[in-house]
């Protein structure tokens, strides 16, 4: 089982990249949701 560590490293790195990307999108999404709430509150208050 030569090179098994390389294979594991490759799979780990690959899935980690997707995971990190997904987290970053989710984070940006939640910041924007807060922003929407804030802006909506602002607009209804001004009315």
């Amino acid at each position, binding site marked *: *089982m*030569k*090179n*098994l560590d*390389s*294979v594991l*490293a*490759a*799979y780990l*790195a*690959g*899935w980690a*990249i*997707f995971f990190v*990307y*997904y987290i970053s*999108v*989710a984070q*940006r*999404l939640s910041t*924007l*949701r807060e*922003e*929407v709430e804030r*802006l*909506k509150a*602002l*607009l209804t208050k*001004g009315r």
Partner: protein
Amino acid sequence: MKSSFKAAILFVLIAVTGYLAFYYAPIERSMGVIQKIFYLHISCAFSAFVAFGTCFYANLRYVFTREAKSDWLGVSAAEVGLAFITVVLVTGPIWAHPVWGIWWTWDARLTLTFVLGLLYLSYLLLRSMIEEPDKRALFSALFGIFAFLDVPLVYFSIRWWRTQHPQPVILGGPGSGLEPRMRVSYLLMWGALTGVLILLVSARYRLEALRASVEDLRREAEVR
């Protein structure tokens, strides 16, 4: 369907494909266990091309229809495609180091992948440098069209340039002459990654749609 439910299905799919790649598919005779990287590597490269193709389609559609939705699809596909390219560029050297003894070589396929990544990085950078939404959508779409047309030209120029050099031995690619259990593993891995592709693009698409509505709300707030 809730997105967490979709993610759970994907997780199961990934576990199954991992099992298939590691235990079900036989160990390749000449290369040994290191060949198992290919299941992820080649499928990711395939999915990246699908993503960039989608981006090209969205760019063309935007130029002719001017629907904001096409713009959102374009940026989502480009960004996710770049994530896939990153996986390809990371897993490739991990395979190459024990087999070729070097991390990187300027071979046609490797160089094409790299240049492709750079082109779409420029596409995303260009988007961040144009403020006005309509302008950003139009001009980035036009750049995307030019960039995609360049892909075959880059490929052929590098291939002719490197003809004297030995081609790397890539056994595989879901073609004929492949061991049946290996083929099943490839196909399922590709299926799982297509699932990942769709999940990521749709998440990114929702983000872009929300960003557009935030921009609208901001403008409305400023008018008051």
